[in-house]
C-alpha cells in the first residue's frame, strides 16, 4: 500500500510540474494573444457607439465577403443596406470596421437619395481572421449594424 502510494506520488509530482509548466506557457500565450485584439475591438466598439450615438440595432445591414480569404491583402467585401432611398427615408452613411486590424477603421460611405441603392463593393486588407462590421446611419437618425466573420489565411498588413 505504502509503495503504491509513493510511486503514485512521484508520478504525480512530475506530471504536476510539467502540467504547471505548460499551463503557465499557455496562460502567458493566451494573455499575449488576447490582449491586442481586445484593445482593438474596444476602440472599434467605441467608434461604433460614437457614430451610432448609442448601441445600433441589429439588422438591415448586410456585409458579404468570402468565408475564407486566402490573401488578406485584397479581400472583396460588399455592403448593402435595406432602404427605399427616397428623399425622406434614406441611408445617410455606412461605416465599415475591422476589429482585428491595427487600425479598425476601414472606410465610410456617404449616400444620397440619388444613390438609389445603399450599396458598395470594394476590396480591403485584413490582418487576420476577424469580424468585419458595418454601421449604417439612416436619415431619421436611427442606426443599424451588421457583420460577417471572414477567415484569413495570410494576413495583409505587412511585417
Amino acid at each position, binding site marked *: 500500500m505504502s509503495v503504491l502510494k509513493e510511486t503514485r506520488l512521484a508520478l504525480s509530482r512530475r506530471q504536476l510540474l510539467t502540467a504547471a509548466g505548460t499551463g503557465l506557457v499557455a496562460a502567458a500565450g493566451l494573455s499575449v494573444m488576447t490582449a491586442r485584439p481586445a484593445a482593438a475591438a474596444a476602440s472599434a466598439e467605441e467608434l461604433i457607439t460614437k457614430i451610432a450615438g448609442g448601441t445600433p440595432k441589429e439588422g438591415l445591414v448586410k456585409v458579404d465577403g468570402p468565408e475564407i480569404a486566402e490573401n488578406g*491583402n*485584397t*479581400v472583396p467585401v460588399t455592403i448593402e443596406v435595406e432602404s427605399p432611398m427616397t428623399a425622406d427615408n434614406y441611408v445617410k452613411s455606412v461605416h465599415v470596421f*475591422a476589429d482585428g*486590424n*491595427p*487600425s479598425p*477603421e*476601414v*472606410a*465610410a*460611405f*456617404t*449616400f*444620397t*437619395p*440619388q*444613390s*438609389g*441603392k445603399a*450599396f*458598395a*463593393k*470594394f*476590396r*480591403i*486588407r*485584413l490582418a487576420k481572421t476577424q469580424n468585419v462590421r458595418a454601421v449604417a446611419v439612416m436619415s431619421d437618425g436611427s442606426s443599424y449594424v451588421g457583420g460577417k466573420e471572414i477567415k484569413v489565411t495570410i494576413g*495583409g*498588413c*505587412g*511585417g
Partner: protein
Amino acid sequence: MSAKPRVRVPSTAKKGEVFEIKTVISHSMESGQRKAADGSPIPRKIIDKFVCTYNGKEVMTSQWHGAVSANPYLEFFCTATESGTLEFTWHDEGGETYTATADIKVT
C-alpha cells in the same frame, strides 16, 4: 507614381433607372504599416477621399483608411435623372487629386 483612374458607366439609361458604376484606380495605398527590406517603415501614402458627382451634384462620397487595398476598386449605384456628366475625383492625402468623367444619356 501617377495614378490612373478607370470608370465604367453605361452610356445610356432610362429615366429613374438605378445603374451600376464601377471604378478602379492604380494606386499603392501604402498603409504605413509595412517595412522595407532594411527595416525602415515605408511612408504612408493613401487616397483618403473619393467623390462622385452627377452634373455637379454629389451622389456619393467615401472616406478611405489604410485598410483599403492597393489599386482601390469601388462599385456602387446611381439613379438616372437627366443626361449629363458624372465626375469622379480621388483625393490623395498628400493633396493630389485624380479625376475621371463619363457621359450618360438619359432617355
